[in-house]
């Protein structure tokens, strides 16, 4: 009888161009909460994907309960009572909650003795019972497209429980939750542990590991660095092991020095395609030298506010004034010329044209002006000179210089290119949406530094972020958005993280 319920020995996994896991060996005991800590790209998700049957290791073996197993699909893993809640939910939008949960293990029946038929009613009943038993209340007949993110996560957890999982893998579960929802989730995990389940938690959030995990394995660039007892390790220890050097947790932030108002948003309302108001009567002002952060759970209208200010989405009513000019009805280019830069959330999809070269991408804000084009004819040497300049200033690594195809560059360098391009414009207003999503600590430090630099230059910064720590660290002023309404706007000094969290949940307090 092995002491470990899950063992992974000498696991190596390669993808074209990269070694995702390099000779990793870990052992997990039954009934413990085991954390996998590492930055993006460290190999945590890949390792667990193999445990869940989505990939097969190139070298090494996996043992469950002391017996060697090979998983060809997630069904094999499920047969060993392993389940996984993924970082990007794997849900079918138009299907109901019940249909999503039973997909793959549908309860079948034969109507009239012959016709195969999926018994949804039975599924609904089973799920109702299951959800009540674990405190994960859901309505099985709701469609996924209609329910919020936290409910979707409950559906993912219920998927595992429905299949009788005993070993449960959570991949970055708190990325999309408010502080209160995180508390709720950690409580659920605790309940599951008390129920005898083994939990594997993949995360880069050390604070949560300290709260719930028993042991923690640290991965860095595909290798296992160490396995620590969480109670005996400090946050600083774990962070340093994760990054490989000493980590700073705070930035030096100069005292606020507000200049004239740059951006004034008055009674902005935005409707979606179903005519539903996703932004309701929002008003705020951002001054030069001020970082105004909009906090809120994903999907409460933040992206729409940013898009409306940038001109990608029409405002149903209200006014947007930039540098004294009313830009409410103006096309995108006019707004940029008036003094707006925008670093979008979905960087690569929205901010770049992946099959074009680096120099073409870097010139996207400038190509139609002199010296990049004269009378409609492009001047390629101007492109090249500008690209060389930006490559130098922003330390963009590119294999073939300005001629590198953007798609072949790493995600981090694409990010540097986009941020560089926008910051180089030196506009009065810069909008950052989720600027550090998916980045590792080194890159995050870099972006934060750039944001503070621009603020000190006198730019007005509109920061939209789901990471509450980031908001608290950087913001001068915080506005909390809930279901499209700005519930509170106040200076950052006057609000605690708990307060902000409460507003994010919609709790309005006096």
């Amino acid at each position: 009888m092995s002491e470990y319920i899950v063992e992974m020995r000498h696991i190596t996994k390669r993808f074209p161009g990269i070694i995702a896991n390099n000779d990793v060996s870990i052992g997990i005991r039954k009934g413990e909460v085991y954390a996998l800590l590492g930055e993006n790209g460290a190999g945590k998700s890949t390792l667990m994907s193999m445990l869940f049957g989505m990939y097969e290791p190139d070298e090494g073996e996996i043992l469950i309960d002391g017996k060697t197993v090979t998983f060809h699909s997630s069904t094999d893993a499920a047969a060993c009572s392993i389940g996984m809640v993924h970082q990007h939910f794997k849900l079918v939008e138009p299907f109901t909650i019940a249909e999503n949960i039973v997909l793959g293990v549908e309860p079948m029946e034969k109507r009239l003795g012959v016709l195969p038929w999926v018994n949804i009613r039975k599924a609904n009943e089973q799920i109702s019972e299951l959800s009540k038993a674990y405190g994960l209340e859901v309505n099985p007949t709701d469609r996924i497209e209609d329910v919020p993110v936290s409910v979707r996560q409950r559906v993912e957890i219920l998927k595992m429980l429905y299949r009788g999982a005993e070993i449960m893998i959570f991949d970055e579960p708190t990325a999309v939750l408010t502080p209160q929802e995180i508390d709720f989730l950690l409580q659920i995990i605790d309940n599951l542990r008390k129920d005898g389940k083994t939990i594997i938690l993949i995360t880069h959030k050390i604070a949560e590991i300290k709260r719930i995990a028993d042991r923690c394995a640290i991965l860095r660039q595909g290798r296992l660095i160490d396995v620590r007892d969480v109670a005996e390790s400090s946050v600083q220890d774990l962070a340093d092991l994760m990054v490989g050097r000493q980590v700073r947790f705070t930035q030096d932030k100069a005292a606020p020095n507000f200049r004239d108002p740059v951006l004034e948003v008055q009674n902005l309302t935005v409707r979606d395609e179903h005519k539903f108001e996703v932004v309701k009567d929002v008003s705020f002002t951002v001054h030069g030298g001020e970082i105004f952060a909009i906090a809120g759970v994903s999907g409460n209208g933040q992206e729409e506010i940013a898009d409306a200010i940038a001109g990608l989405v029409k405002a149903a009513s209200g006014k947007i004034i930039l540098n004294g000019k009313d830009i409410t009805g103006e096309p995108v280019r006019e707004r940029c010329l008036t003094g707006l830069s925008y670093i979008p959330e979905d960087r690569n999809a929205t901010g770049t044209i992946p099959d074009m070269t680096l120099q073409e991408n870097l010139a996207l804000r400038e190509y139609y002006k002199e010296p990049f084009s004269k009378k409609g004819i492009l001047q390629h040497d101007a492109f090249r000179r500008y690209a060389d300049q930006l490559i130098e200033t922003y330390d963009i690594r590119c294999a073939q210089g300005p001629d590198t195809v953007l798609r072949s560059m790493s995600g981090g360098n694409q990010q540097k290119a986009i941020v560089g391009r926008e910051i180089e414009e030196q506009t009065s207003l810069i909008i950052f949406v989720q600027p550090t999503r998916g980045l590792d600590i080194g890159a995050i430090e870099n972006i934060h530094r750039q944001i503070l630099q621009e603020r000190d230059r006198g730019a007005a910064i509109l920061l939209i972020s789901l990471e509450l720590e980031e908001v608290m660290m950087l913001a001068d002023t915080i506005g909390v958005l809930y279901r499209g309404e700005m519930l509170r706007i106040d200076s950052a000094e006057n609000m605690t993280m708990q307060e902000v969290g409460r507003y994010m949940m919609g709790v309005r307090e006096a």
Partner: protein
Amino acid sequence: MNKVFTDGLSFALPLLIMAVGALYSEKSGVTNLAIEGFQGVGAFFGALAATLLAPLMGNGNQMIIYIAILCAAVGGALFSCIHGLLCIRFRANQVISGVVINILSVALTAFFTSAANTAINGTASNKFVLDVSARFSIPLLSQIPWIGGLFTNMYPFEIIIIVLVIILWYLLNRTRFGMRLRACGENPQAVDAAGANVIRIRWTAVMISGALSGIGGICFAYSLIGNFSPSIYQGFGYLAIAAMIFGNWSIGPTTLACLVFGLAKSGGLQLCIAAGLPSNYTDLFLMLPYVLTLLLLVFFSKKNHPPKAAGEPWDKSKR
């Protein structure tokens, strides 16, 4: 008036079976513009079978028609493997693949019809002449005024199609296979994580679309044209796709859309005859289904919701 319903239905039903084929493919996540080609190639196989069997089983033997339909289905399914290969295995652009197959079909069927005819009877004709299919009327129902026309002078294949469509609806919406297929078109990652084989489901869906289109093609050959020739390619495959779009990718509304097309076509023709216009003017009325399609697309395209993952090749390594 009866004739409008009779002819309308006999046009609408083959169109419907093709539209359902397109629907299966798209619902599983493979954009399928190749219906036009599939129906032509399927019709080719069916007509070839009929031509080969006629001397053996006797001309005018109605059994030949059923065998032809079967061969058309098999032939269409086999040919659709090219689209499957290009889209699923080679991850090519699915729109290009569809267009490529349509072009290829015209060339292939023209060439092989000619070659087959040369081999069979020495003439390099590009037509396979088909027998006239027997028609029947349902007693009682066909006596109802006005809509009795729907049950008069029906081709036997119309019944086959109606039964097939009902089975296909059940398959898609009530069975496990159908549920997984629909999930593949919305979020293939979810299906993969649930342990089902996305690739196999999509291949099956594409081959189903090939088979169904083949059936549609041979039915058109029998009912509309009387032979198999290059005039099998009249854009009905694209009409079927348009019907699927109006039907918002579900079988019930698609059926309605096909009926509208059918009645428009036959109605237009009868109008032309009734008004006593010379036969040259029929061309104008033959335009009706296409004009109608455009107009309906104008009004309905904004609201439609194609399957979310349609058109994107499935790549297992993307998480």
